[in-house]
């Protein structure tokens, strides 16, 4: 075991962990206000480790028996991780055995990917260390939020509801500023999403499905209009969560 690399990974994960703590705090509050109990919110965070997927998940869970929709929503929202995993798998060194890949592969998030990909070669002890504090931060923040959700006054909870959305804006805007393609794709997605929200017949379709349709149509148009020619688009277009 390489303790030095493990320690290096753990300290690289500290800022991510702190960020996750505060974001998952809001998720905990949202989950309990959607009717889930604290242990349900905690389990979701411990087993998923993804903000957008979990937020979409609780919005689907409040309806009964929408299992197929849940699956489609999760696949659509989380497909980006496949891309990051592919990209990361090309940078791993010989320390990664097959078992390590199956275990550590479950911890690829936007930020963990973002830090790991800047290394020349990714060692498994470094990567394992890197995941520890973000995981703890994500789980404990959810727990604290789920428990405090009942204690905090209404007006504070109300304000916190915008936190995850604000974070999404903070991810998209800087990239849209850099790339016309991302601006166009995002605007198409917003336009479609508004259409599904406000057009009477369409507004009956549940949110999980509409997000998938909006994302796939907007992205498809974007991929046709603005094909990426670089070898590794992730190095030119950073993704962060």
């Amino acid at each position, binding site marked *: 075991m390489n303790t030095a690399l493990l320690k290096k990974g753990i300290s690289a994960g500290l800022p991510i962990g702190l*960020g996750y703590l505060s974001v998952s705090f809001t998720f905990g509050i949202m989950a309990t206000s959607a009717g889930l109990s604290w242990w349900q919110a905690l389990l979701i965070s411990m*087993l998923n480790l993804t903000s957008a997927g979990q937020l979409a998940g609780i919005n689907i869970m409040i309806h009964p028996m929408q299992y197929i929709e849940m699956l489609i929503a999760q696949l659509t929202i989380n497909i980006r991780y496949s891309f990051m995993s592919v990209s990361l*798998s090309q940078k791993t060194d010989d320390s990664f055995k097959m078992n390590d890949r199956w275990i550590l592969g479950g911890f690829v998030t936007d930020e963990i990917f973002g830090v790991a990909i800047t290394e020349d070669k990714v060692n498994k002890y470094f990567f394992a260390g890197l995941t520890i504090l973000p995981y703890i931060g994500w789980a404990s923040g959810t727990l604290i939020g789920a428990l405090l959700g009942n204690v905090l006054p209404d007006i504070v909870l109300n304000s916190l509801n915008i936190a995850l959305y604000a974070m999404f804006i903070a991810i*998209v805007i800087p990239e849209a500023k850099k790339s016309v393609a991302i601006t166009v794709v995002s605007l198409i997605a917003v336009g479609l999403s508004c259409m599904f929200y406000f057009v009477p017949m369409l507004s009956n379709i549940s949110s999980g499905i509409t997000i998938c349709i909006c994302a796939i149509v907007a992205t498809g148009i*974007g991929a046709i209009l603005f094909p990426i020619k670089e070898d590794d688009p992730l190095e030119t277009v950073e993704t962060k969560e």
Partner: protein
Amino acid sequence: MDNIQFFIYLAIMAISTYLIRAIPFALASRKIENTFIKSFLCYIPYAVLAAMTFPAVFYATKNPVSATVGVIIAFILALFKRGLMTVAVAACAGVFITEIVLRYIL
């Protein structure tokens, strides 16, 4: 929602989210060459986040006015590339102050 339904939902979420990360990490041996797939995978996070945020964000708080203030703050700070935390906290503060103003002052 009963516990059985919760655990089915949880299993669908957790297993699909795990596999979508782990399978490519474990099995990817060559780079993706197809331009359409590459572009698609590159753009999809932003489309998802944009569609999830709008118009839902305007109904996330008690009042669309306070939500709009939060969105504007988030936009401005994001344009200046502030960190995710800064943007989130500032947007919350904006909503909080607007709700106080709407409730107790106006």
